[in-house]
């Protein structure tokens, strides 16, 4: 081990004894991230080329050929997953934006923190419990359908359970509080004085929204997009439990490749595809946002301050 203090400045800086505890600080996290995320995800690409069984066999790329051979199935399912993910994200934004705005501007701080906590707490228990609660609510003969039937709005035997709508509803429900959090944090950063100034200069309500509020909440919106769209498009459980005949998603089929079909290479190929498409779409959204509002995405100190997507 070189401990020279006379080497070049770069070497000296890299190898000064005092550096070692510093490296020890970041080593566990880095090792963990590389060993448990970077390497496994990268290896998916290789596994997807194997002939099987399992993660062995020759490199053939057969599973990619099978997938490309049935674009209707695999492409169709992928589109359905993305559509459900985007739909849920859009609904979340539509519901969460006014909620976050109202919380920030029209609710007393004490009540506000209570409401935020109440919104998020159930969603911190277990996704399965929430899916299950939704199942109980919308099941045929359950509370919602019985109430609707009593009002004459539906027959008691009708149900939206086992449809795509149930999956969309569930995905929206699952991620709504997180979108509220993300947007609330962004809206809180808008100084009220800025809006007052704009008003005094004669800007209309729409103009204030379009030119001040929207650009300033854009980083929060992008954060929300990452924490809602990504898991929603990559979900499988909601569709497995609530989706029925028409709610199958790409993720459901990935899970089935592992849990049923014993086709690990195809699972790997599908997982890579889904991940790539999700990341690509996120990139596109970011680009669009930056083009629409140049400068809005570049905030001083964006690093680490909740702007994970920004």
């Amino acid at each position, binding site marked *: 081990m070189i401990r020279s203090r006379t080497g070049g400045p770069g070497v000296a800086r890299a190898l000064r004894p005092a550096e070692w505890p510093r490296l020890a600080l970041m080593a566990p996290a880095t090792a963990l991230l590389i060993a448990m995320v970077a390497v496994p995800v990268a290896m998916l690409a290789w596994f997807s080329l194997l002939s099987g069984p*399992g993660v062995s066999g020759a490199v053939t790329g057969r599973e990619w050929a099978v997938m490309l051979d*049935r674009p*209707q*199935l695999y492409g*169709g*399912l992928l589109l359905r997953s993305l559509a459900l993910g985007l739909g849920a994200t859009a609904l979340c934004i539509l519901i969460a934006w006014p909620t976050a705005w109202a919380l920030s501007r029209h609710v007393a701080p004490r009540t506000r923190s209570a409401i935020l906590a109440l919104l998020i707490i159930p969603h911190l228990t277990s996704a399965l419990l929430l899916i299950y609660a939704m199942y109980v609510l919308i*099941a*045929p*003969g*359950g509370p919602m*359908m019985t109430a609707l039937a009593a009002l004459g709005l539906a027959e*008691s*035997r*009708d*149900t939206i*359970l*086992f449809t795509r709508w149930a999956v969309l509803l569930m995905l929206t429900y699952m991620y709504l509080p997180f979108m509220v959090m993300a947007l609330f944090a962004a809206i809180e950063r808008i100084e009220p004085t800025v809006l007052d100034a704009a008003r005094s200069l004669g800007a209309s309500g729409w103009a204030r929204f379009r030119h001040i509020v929207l650009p300033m909440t854009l980083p929060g919106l992008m954060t929300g997009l990452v924490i809602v769209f990504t898991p929603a498009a990559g979900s499988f459980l909601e569709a*497995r439990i609530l989706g*029925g*005949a*028409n709610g*199958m998603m790409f993720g459901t*089929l990935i899970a*089935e490749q*592992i*849990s*049923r*079909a*014993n*086709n690990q290479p195809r699972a790997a190929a599908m997982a890579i595809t889904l991940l790539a498409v999700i990341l690509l779409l996120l990139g596109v959204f970011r680009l669009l946002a930056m083009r629409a509002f140049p400068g809005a995405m570049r905030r001083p100190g964006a690093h680490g301050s909740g702007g994970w997507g920004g």
Partner: protein
Amino acid sequence: MKAPIALAGLVAGAALLAAPAGADLPFEGQTLTVLNWNGYGSDTELALRGFEERTGATVRHVYHSGGEELRQILRSGGIGQIDVALPNPTYILQMVEEGMLQPVDPDLLDNMSKIAPNFLEVDDLYSDGALYGVPWVWGSTGLTYNTEAFPEPPTSWLVLWDEANRGRVAFMDSPIEAVMLAALHLGQDPHDPDLDAVRSALEELHENVQTYWGSSDDFNRAIITGAVTVGNYWSGNAGSLIAEGHPVGYVIPDEGAAGWLSTWVIVRDAPSSDLAHAWIDWMISTEFQLGWAEDPEAGAPAPANAEAAALLSDAARGRVQAYGEHAERLSIMQSLTPEQQQVYTDLLAEVKSGL
């Protein structure tokens, strides 16, 4: 309220007393790992307590949701961790070939002689003359319908394809059941059908299907509320619904139906082979089989233990659908090759996606 359970408890207790007094429990402190569906008999208090009292061993469960998943669990690390599993015999041969199982020694099973002989004639239980599967319970996957929607019992699988039932069909989410049913409907050999015809038939059926049910709960709720009016469903579970007074009927259609056995197997490298044998012996005992079948809420299929079957109360007999005449019209499922399994699985997945 829980009289049958109490009765079963008494029987089990009596059996315990009959054991040599003062004998140490043979497997004190050991653990047996069972791979089964959730809520399928082996995880009832009757099963767990009874076994614990007899052997001193505790039981833990690993759950799967279908035969494909069962084998997948063994493939991906279950061997060496799991002692016993409960596959459909259809899978046994292939599981033997994949080296997942070890033979069962019938001499270690005191209750083997009580199994109805016809179940022991099933070829799929044996490989190279050695016994691998011990018959436990049996049943059928027949036509189950809502009696309010069908005052006259339907007699043919055709009813599933009937346009009048669009969006009212619940179909079982199982590749082999789906292919066999479509083959029966098409009048083909359920064990070797023309798969293109099967695929078109299932695609046609997909138009009518509201859900591919994966759990008995999906089916139960849907059929008793009328959200679906007809589907293919397990005999024992349908029998429970009928016994509870729900507007539900169950028939074996004219074309026949798939019949199935549930069989206990011992996993290769089972942590304790002796304990595994003791478990299977308890599972096929008259005490357990009767106790399970008599529990009105258990949804048990028909017992393979002839003594237990003969002792069933009339109510329980109806509930578990232990009718010999049904058995004659069933096509008992047969083994599939790995290629067939992959093809069946892909086929149903593609049909289900609706694309």
